[in-house]
């Protein structure tokens, strides 16, 4: 039995080292902890501060639990035994005050960071913010560039160090969640509604985007690629798409595209109908009604 427990304990230690190694040395792979975007970076900072604050309580409690468990077991003849001691007002006040204090600090953190990192807050930058409209359909992402009048499917090309204002909606699909782990937090894209978020990539790179809210059979395949390129490369890319022999994304083409399909390859649209996004968002309103209540 002793050998078996020794094996189990060593296995436990080995596995611990493996896990720690994965986290600490995982590098790029641990996307949430290795952000490439300004929002994700700030979100990570918040997490670190919070973890530190929590450890202020958790570590003493663990030490206390370890001490109590090892000292006051039945076999220890030297440990004091006070079976009737069941309350102490001073101690109880401390037991409440200690967690309350830490939680209060955390609550301040909640308030401040929830406001500071509100998705609908613009990112301050010397660069002008660009807009991209995101429409989730089953089971692909359509990205409309309203200022450039082009559109793509499952490919998001953005210039580095430029704030991007995303406006998100969906068409004939249950709820979706737009998430690029390395750039920043996710936001839902819902039919008949428009949400918004701001993200910015800190450099050149290729990132992975996904949908994290189940919406049917093709859900797991609803991933997209994010290419962050230099400003020049971006301008060139836009020009190339505009000149490519690809169709226009108007309402008809969109409706056909929005039909359920999985594993859509990257596609391009050299021009887009004006106000396509607004049309998509308001399509569930009663005929004759505008965007009031949006």
């Amino acid at each position, binding site marked *: 039995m002793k050998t078996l427990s020794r094996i*189990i304990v060593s*296995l*436990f230690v080995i596995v611990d080292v493996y*896990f720690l190694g*994965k986290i600490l040395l995982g590098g790029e*792979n641990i*996307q*949430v902890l290795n952000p490439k975007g300004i929002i994700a970076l700030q*979100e*990570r900072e*918040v*997490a670190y501060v*919070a973890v530190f604050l929590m450890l202020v*309580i*958790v570590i003493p*409690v*663990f030490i*206390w639990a370890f001490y*109590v*468990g090892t000292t*006051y*077991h*039945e076999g220890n003849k030297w440990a*004091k*035994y*006070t*079976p*009737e*001691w069941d*309350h102490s007002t001073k*101690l*109880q006040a401390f*037991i*409440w005050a200690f*967690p309350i204090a830490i*939680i209060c600090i*955390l*609550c301040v953190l*909640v308030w401040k960071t*929830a*406001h*500071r990192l509100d998705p*609908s807050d613009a990112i301050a930058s010397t660069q002008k913010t660009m807009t991209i409209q995101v429409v989730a359909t089953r089971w692909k992402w359509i990205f409309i560039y309203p200022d450039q009048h082009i559109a793509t499917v499952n490919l998001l090309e953005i210039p580095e160090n430029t704030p991007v204002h995303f406006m998100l909606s969906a068409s004939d699909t*249950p709820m979706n969640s737009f*998430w690029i*782990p390395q750039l920043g937090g*996710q*936001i*839902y894209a819902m*039919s*008949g509604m428009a*949400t918004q978020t701001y993200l910015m990539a800190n450099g050149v790179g290729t990132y992975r985007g*996904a949908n*994290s*809210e*189940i*919406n049917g*059979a093709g*859900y*797991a395949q609803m991933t997209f690629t994010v290419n962050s390129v230099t400003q020049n490369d971006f301008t060139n890319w836009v020009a190339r798409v505009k000149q490519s022999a690809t169709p226009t994304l108007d309402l008809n083409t969109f409706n056909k595209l929005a039909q359920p399909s999985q594993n859509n390859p990257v596609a391009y649209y050299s021009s887009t109908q004006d106000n396509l996004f607004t049309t998509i968002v308001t399509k569930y309103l009663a005929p004759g009604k505008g965007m009031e209540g949006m």
Partner: protein
Amino acid sequence: MEQFILGRLTWSSLPHEWFTLGGTVAFATILIGLTIFLTRVKRWKWLWNEWLTSTDPKKIGIMYIIIAFLMFLRGGLDVVMIWLQQTIGTTSSPGYLGATHGYLSADHFQQIFTAHGDIMVFFVTMGFLFGLINLIVPLQIGARDLAFPFLNSLGFWLYFAGVVLINMFFVLGGEFAAAGWLAVAPLSELQFNPGVGVDYWIWSLQVSGLGTLIGGINFVVTILKMRAPGMSLMRMPMFTWASLMGMILVISIFPILAMTMILLTLDRYLGMHFFTLDNGGNAMMYWNLIWMWGHPEVYVLIIPVFGIYSEIVSTFAQKKIFGYTSLVVAVGAITLLSFSVWLHHFFTMGAGADVNAFFGIMTMWIAIPTGVQIINWLFTMFRGKIIFKSPIYWFFGFVSTFTFGGMAGLLMALPPVDFQVHNSLFLVAHFHTMIVGGALFGIFAGFTYWFPKVFGFKLHERIGKYAFWTWLVGFFLSFVPLYILGMMGAVRRMDTYSPSLGWQQLFTVSLIGACVIMCAVGLQILQLVVSIIQRKQNRDLTGDPWNGRSLEWATASPPPFYNFAVIPQVHSRDAFWEMKNPKGISSSEVAKQKKTSIKYEDIELPKNTPMGIYLSGFIFLFGLAMVWHAWLFAIIGLVGAICCVILRTFDEHTEYVLTAAEVEQIEKKLRAKS
């Protein structure tokens, strides 16, 4: 006409896929096996009279626990299927058994994790807790039964009907809901899920939910109205307090679930537009409603378990529970606060910073009473004399795992952090840590602790310890990879992913962990079998195997069906401890007092009744018929149920009298045995 009778049933509704055939064969084998066994040992009448029609909460409690355990095996099987698919089903892997990648199609995979969630929450954890409360709380408060014995039986049979309904799709229909355990709208609307899957979800949960609500009302009234004389609220054992709080939550939230499911039903059956995409429906309303139920629900799962830990810590540390008032306040605070946090389940829906911050703050606050409880338990052990039996092992397992899961939860209470981990495997790891490390470990601890009281013999201690360590290692192996995977950007509910992401390794480790957990469960089953075989050696003859402090230990093990021959008079907290160690009286006096003649009185007890079974049977028929739109049978079920209710109200003779002489005889026999 055929439509009216059979609804949308067709020949293809019968099992014809590998898993529906497998499931049907499994159920058929079990049923046939059981039938043969019962016929061989000639126990049909005994089963009917002693167990199925019983209104004794001890019997009903055992039945709850047996069914909960069977559903645990089913839910566990779902888990292994999920893990296997996630390990082998990368986008570059071939497809088996009709799937594109791995061996489960995306739709099938989604049905499995939906079923897994619903089964584990509704039928395993709640089933077990309802069983435990039935068994222990009446004994702890010095009562003979619950306030409404018939409703207790009805509640169990409705739960059982729900169990059958949620497993029914194997036999009829082959499709369960594929919209997550909460069947969120608009995914669960007709537009996206017109089949019977979501309907099975609705009706199995409605039927068992009705049973849960009835049980909740029953427990609340029992605890508030039927305590032994002298047991004021502040003298109740902690498990009773925790059960009271948990049940107050149940009666507050299950009406919300019931009505939300009704609204979804109205959308699906009558073309209404509560949560549809068109005609003014508002799907976000579903999210708010379902989580208004859903969040307090997870506290229903954990609060009674906090009560279990309180009992175990105090008994095994051989010391009074430290900070009783604080613990009561803490449990009450958690109960109240649990109503104010629901939006943290969808911070990412864009409600705005003020709203998100409010709910984040309220979520943070719940950590305070939880932490206070843990510290008080540790102070109970401080300067105690801890007996390290397996319940205490489970407690320390809980402290270590629950704390980390709680930290993960607090992290997610910060909206900006939640934006990065919402709906990822990090979230999945968090709530499993809470439910497995918190609730399940506590259930195992409570099971071991109260087993001798219920069955009259102890469980094998050493195998129990092995099972604990195996569980702990398996749990660790299974869920730490999920935390890491979440931080790597892996979303939940994924049936496939690109192998180039490097996730497969961690999924494999997780799968190994799942296998270790399977071994742990195997050890627990072994423990049960060995304990039954060795029961004569481990008999509990005193009724008090752990030197307990509350009234349930004042009865024989197992207790007579009337619990107490004479309802005890309570003078303080830890009522039984005071009875054993009364202040100012020597132990010989105590023994003499015990021997002096006890005055027995007639006891009124509820009769057995089959009406709970019949009523639930009709409601089951109604539910199943509604799934299939078989309106004729739905009407039969509904009318039959109403007739049962009316018939029951005409039944004047629902109780019988056990004479004082009979009580005395039984008591004499019990004392002769010990």
